[in-house]
């Protein structure tokens, strides 16, 4: 699906800045993201990528500027089923099995039509791991479970912090495939990467963050 630029963008940030203890983390930034788009935020270590994502989903408050979701100002209370965040911490329970974790996510966030937790697990390459407790999976396998959660829960906007980290080559391809699928279905995603490996399908729009001097 081609991004449609006539309607209000899914996510829009206007003159967004964030300052921690009087130290600017990222400068005034304008981003807009339409349905069907994947945008890559690139930047060196410490340039503020993680911070930006947290501001965009309302977990941190911007120092100035504002964030609009479907044209309306964003607050934590108004997110309702629209945004999914995948950060450094995956939000999965190590003591539960992969399937139990996904069932919980579905209970909390609902489920897309035509998919089940088992199918989602299979499509991230974890068939046969359904009853394995998460604690016994390796770092990359855990990340895949988090990707399966993205596939299940209906959220139009994905904010993914370094989705490629800890994954091997097939894992990286998997992320790209999943992102493509999401964009084609009318979703949008903002992903960060420090540039050693990156979203490769098509030529995604890139936003470069610079380390504040």
């Amino acid at each position, binding site marked *: 699906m081609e991004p449609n630029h006539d309607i209000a963008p899914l996510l829009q940030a206007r003159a967004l800045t964030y300052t921690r203890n009087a130290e600017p983390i990222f400068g005034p930034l304008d981003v807009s993201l339409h349905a069907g788009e994947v945008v890559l935020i690139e930047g060196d270590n410490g340039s503020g990528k993680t911070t930006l994502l947290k501001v965009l989903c309302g*977990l*941190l408050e911007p120092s100035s500027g504002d964030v609009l979701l479907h044209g309306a100002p964003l607050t934590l209370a108004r997110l309702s089923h629209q945004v999914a*965040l995948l*950060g450094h911490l995956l939000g999965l*329970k190590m*003591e539960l099995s992969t399937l139990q974790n996904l069932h919980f996510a579905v*209970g*909390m*966030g*609902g489920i897309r039509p035509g998919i089940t937790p088992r199918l989602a697990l299979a499509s991230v390459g974890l068939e046969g791991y359904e009853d394995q407790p998460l604690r016994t999976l390796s770092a990359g396998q855990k990340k895949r479970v988090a990707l399966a959660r993205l596939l299940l829960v209906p959220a139009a906007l994905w904010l993914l912090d370094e989705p490629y980290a800890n994954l091997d080559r097939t894992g990286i391809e998997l992320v790209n495939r999943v992102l493509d699928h999401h964009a084609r279905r009318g979703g949008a995603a903002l992903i960060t990467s420090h540039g050693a490996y990156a979203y490769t399908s098509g030529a995604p729009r890139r936003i470069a963050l610079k380390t504040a001097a």
Partner: protein
Amino acid sequence: MKPGTTRAACVALLRRDLTLIWRRRGDALNPLLFSIIVVALFPFALGPEQATLARIAAGTIFVALLLASLLSLDMLFRSDLEDGSLEQLVLSPHPLSLLLACKIAIHWLTTTLPLIVIAPLLAQMLYLPDTVLPVLLIALALATPLLSLIGSVCVALTVGMRRSGMLLTLLVLPLIVPALIFGAGACNAAQAGLPFTAPLLWLGAWLVLALVLAPLAAAAALKISLT
């Protein structure tokens, strides 16, 4: 039940947390053993005279159970914070106060209720007169949920900090001193043969108030300390 509705979310949360507690049932026993041991220390510290021990029994049991459930409060959001689940909970579209109320209820049922169940044993250890025991149990049944509720607000405030256990104690204790005065006071009055219903009624009234307000306050506090 449609997935994604608020009811489904509460059920999912309850089920997940109960499963987790079952998986770590060893941990759930710890507050129990802690309070037994604290109570068992007093005869060593004070000597085995029955009269002295009986005099302090109700108060000591109260203090030991409050400490045990207080220390276990620290885990209320800890593991959710550490693995990022708390962030996902806050970002979820459901009323946070309701989700927190579920968590608090589970915490009370799984860690504090067992403490009340073994209170008669502790009472035996300190020679509490049998007539006082029912008063002690009622007082505990009213005071401990109050502690869990008030405590959850403080835990929510300190949740982002490392090693918040002691700080938490510090925040909570002044708030629960009234509960202690009334609860242990009722027991002492009963032991001395005086009327004891008034303090218990006070405790009940506070509990109702806390049931309504604490989850809302905890949700607000959690948002403050996470963002």
